[in-house]
């Protein structure tokens, strides 16, 4: 039983079949509709219209596929098969198998001695027995193949380490509001390993800066943080460290402060609100404990053109909100409001008394990366050695006015045949010239 399993694992055909299955599953996975990303209604519609497609997608769509324990069997088999094959091959060492054979012969006055010297001068490793000479080159390439497959195995190690140690969560910071890191401070925790070892640091978004070239093109965004009182600048792509964890800038937006009183003069809101809006887009917020909802459109650099209103640039040079107040869905009124102004809109008195940024940070930890990077290094090194040193061997017999070569090469027969021919030509020229 075990013997049979090992036999299958060692089979080269089986390895290819596993890879083909993997590729087919991944192609299906990316092409099928993603049910987990649909709204419940969309999912229901699909289920009603195409029940079969719905069922297949639910099982094989990439996100479901990679989460399924059954899917793990496949990489596991690939791992075992690669491991078994690599172990056996390293034990048995380099063998001249597969590849191409080529025979050629020609006239030559050179004896075995001279032919050996000729080959040695061209960096062949020469061994002689009687009239026959064996010359090797690039047999070290075999070990490139082993290193390459070891690199492949290391990827699996990296993935396992990642899935056991990975932490990845979203932390929302608003300018001026400190946050103490802990389980409850995250908006969303995607991967929760090692939360306990997260230092309970206090993080404050002291200031957020955005730079645009000619006020149009995004150039630099930076969150200026105080982490336990220490200044850290986090730019996109340039994260900072908190212990073993990394904190990276993911998204940002505007957080206006509004003070609102109702028609009786009672203050019903005084808060800084994180709005999710790009210039000109809408977001809305409810006023807690009241029937009011406010829809907000933001113009960072407000300008009018005839009757049209808009934003000249994405830079908050002249921040203005267009606010629409509704009471239980009924529209009460709408109006524009600039920074540090007070307006009455839909019966509410609204003061826009501050504009800050919010920054959405990704706090993460992943020890797998270094194994992954290491495996890519081994893979590239191994392949370069394997294919850069073309493994080949010549068995040459010389004497009585003739030279004949039986050659074997692992790859590149065309190149090899030319090379064999050149040797024959040199031998025919009769004289071994060490400078040639």
């Amino acid at each position: 039983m075990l013997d049979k399993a090992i036999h299958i694992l060692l089979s080269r055909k089986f390895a290819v079949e596993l890879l083909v299955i993997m590729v087919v599953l991944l192609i299906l996975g990316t092409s099928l509709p993603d049910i987990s990303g649909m709204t419940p209604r969309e999912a229901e519609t699909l289920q009603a219209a195409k029940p079969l497609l719905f069922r297949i997608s639910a099982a094989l769509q990439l996100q479901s596929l990679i989460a399924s324990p059954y899917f793990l069997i496949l990489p596991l088999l690939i791992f075992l098969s690669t491991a078994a094959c690599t172990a056996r091959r390293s034990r048995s060492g380099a063998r001249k198998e597969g590849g191409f054979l080529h025979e050629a012969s020609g006239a030559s006055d050179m004896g075995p001695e001279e032919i050996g010297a000729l080959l040695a001068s061209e960096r062949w490793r020469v061994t002689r027995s009687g009239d026959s000479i064996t010359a090797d080159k690039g047999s070290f390439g075999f070990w490139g193949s082993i290193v390459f497959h070891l690199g492949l195995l290391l990827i699996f190690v990296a993935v396992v380490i990642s899935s056991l140690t990975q932490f990845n969560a979203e932390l929302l910071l608003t300018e001026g509001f400190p946050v103490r890191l802990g389980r409850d401070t995250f908006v969303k925790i995607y991967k929760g390993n090692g939360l306990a070892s997260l230092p309970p640091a206090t993080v404050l978004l002291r200031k957020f800066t955005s730079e645009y070239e000619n006020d149009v093109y995004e150039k630099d965004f930076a969150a200026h943080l105080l982490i336990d009182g220490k200044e850290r600048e986090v730019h996109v792509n340039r994260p900072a460290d908190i212990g073993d964890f990394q904190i990276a800038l993911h998204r940002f937006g505007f957080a206006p402060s509004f003070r609102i009183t109702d028609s009786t003069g009672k203050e019903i809101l005084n808060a800084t609100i994180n709005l999710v809006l790009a210039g000109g887009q809408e977001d809305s917020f409810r006023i807690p404990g009241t029937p009011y909802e406010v829809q907000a459109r933001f113009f960072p650099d407000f300008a009018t053109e005839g009757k049209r209103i808009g934003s000249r640039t994405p830079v908050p040079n002249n921040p203005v909100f267009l606010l629409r107040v509704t009471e239980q869905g009924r529209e009460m009124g709408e109006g524009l409001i600039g920074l540090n102004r007070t307006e009455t809109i839909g019966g509410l008195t609204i003061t826009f008394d501050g504009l800050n940024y919010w920054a959405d940070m990704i706090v993460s930890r992943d020890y797998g990366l270094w194994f992954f990077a290491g495996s890519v290094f081994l893979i590239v090194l191994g392949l370069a050695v394997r294919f850069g040193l073309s493994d080949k061997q010549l068995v040459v017999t010389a004497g009585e006015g003739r030279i004949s070569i039986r050659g074997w090469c692992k790859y590149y027969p065309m190149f090899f045949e030319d090379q064999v021919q050149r040797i024959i030509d040199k031998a025919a020229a009769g004289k071994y010239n060490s400078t040639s």
Partner: protein
Amino acid sequence: MNPVEGFLLWSSIFVLLFAFFGYLTGTVFKKERLFTISHRGTLAACVLMAAAIGVRWIATGHIPVMGTYENSLVGAWTVVVGLVVAGRYFPRGTLLSLVLLPLALLIVGNGIMTNAVLAPLEPPYQSPWLYVHVLFAWFAFGAYLLASTVGGLYLVRSRAEGRDGVERIREFLPPLRKLDEICLRFIIFGFITDAVMIGAGAIWARGLWGRYWGWDPIETWSLISWLTYGINLHLRLTLGWKGKKAAWVALLSFVGILISFFGFGLVEGVHTQIMKPR
């Protein structure tokens, strides 16, 4: 587009068009001289395009990797470089050129129709790993493209073998065994550079999104492509596939790469998400 860049690019386009018609006329009317001129034209266009890329690089202060125009410019250039490299193995280089020159022109034409404005590198792209990632992505893409083209030409030649008119094909295509080996070499080159591309992308992603692999559609397709060429190599090197079978696999494998490449603009993955106020 900067005026010097525009001049260089348009000149290269005209030279490429000229070379294409040179090859076409040369093939149809058997004019040997036209092949030589067209070959020189292709070389000149390659240099002109490289200069256009260099000028743009200096003008924007960053490697041209952003947006359809810059990607098309570098992509078309990669195809022309590939043509120059592989063309050495093809008698007169003509058949390969007749396939690849229109392709390069299509890619660059598609790019020119989009916005070619000079803009600084957006923040997510500001990473040295990106340079490695993009450079090797182009190497890999170019090599795979050539592998499939050579695979296709293998099939053309093998169909022609033993029929009338085969002499004509022989004038333009190297022997089958040679085509087979050239195809293998491009697959190997692509496979290695693809691995570097994926590795650099992963390290970049870790700093940007906090994870090195996230199964987004583009990442998954890049894995699919790499595995597909891994299968190609296994079939050829461990199971000994050669000839027509291997050529078909090389040709069809490229379909996967194309989907992944054009998926760039179409698929809603993190790869298409840039830093904007949201």
